[in-house]
């Protein structure tokens, strides 16, 4: 068990707690995409680079975009 994995997993836990307790939806989405990035790093460390690529692309890319779009759509402010 390398030190790097332990540090990264600590980061993961702290980030996920922030994601859950944060009052601001947009902030928690951005934190969530950071969480996805760190998760991808851990996966890369565990010997799964293929999945790390997928995770970065999906979690920090598309899913965050979908989240942001729907948050904008559900708040009444003008989008553009």
């Amino acid at each position, binding site marked *: 068990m390398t030190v790097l994995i332990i540090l990264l997993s600590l980061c993961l836990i702290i980030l996920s707690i922030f*994601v859950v307790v944060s009052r601001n939806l947009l902030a928690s989405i951005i934190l969530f995409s950071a969480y996805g990035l760190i998760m991808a790093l851990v996966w890369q460390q565990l*010997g799964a680079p293929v*999945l790390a690529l997928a*995770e970065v692309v999906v979690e920090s890319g598309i899913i965050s975009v979908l989240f942001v779009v*729907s948050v904008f759509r559900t708040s009444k402010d003008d989008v553009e």
Partner: protein
Amino acid sequence: MLKASFSNLIYVVSMILFLIGFYAVAMRPSLIKKIIGINIMETAIFLFLIGIGNKKGGASPLVVEGIEKYVNPFPQAMVLMALVVGVGTTALALILAVRLFECENGEKR
């Protein structure tokens, strides 16, 4: 039990993340927060599965001449497929949440 838990640190971390996600799903009133919680649970399980497939000193499962020892590719394949499924479920959840929000706030369709 403690010693075993330390050598299986990744499993323990994934279980903690799973519970944090579960807390978000069960307790946060906001629909978007619930969906984020679902995603956290999902990635936690993926971490768990990848941990199962790990092998000490194994290379990542891309076959190269001269390397004999690779990590187990099967959990990784499972995770890749479950990741795609996860995108689908998240998108559907967001669609329902958005439509529900619009209905509740009396906007025209």
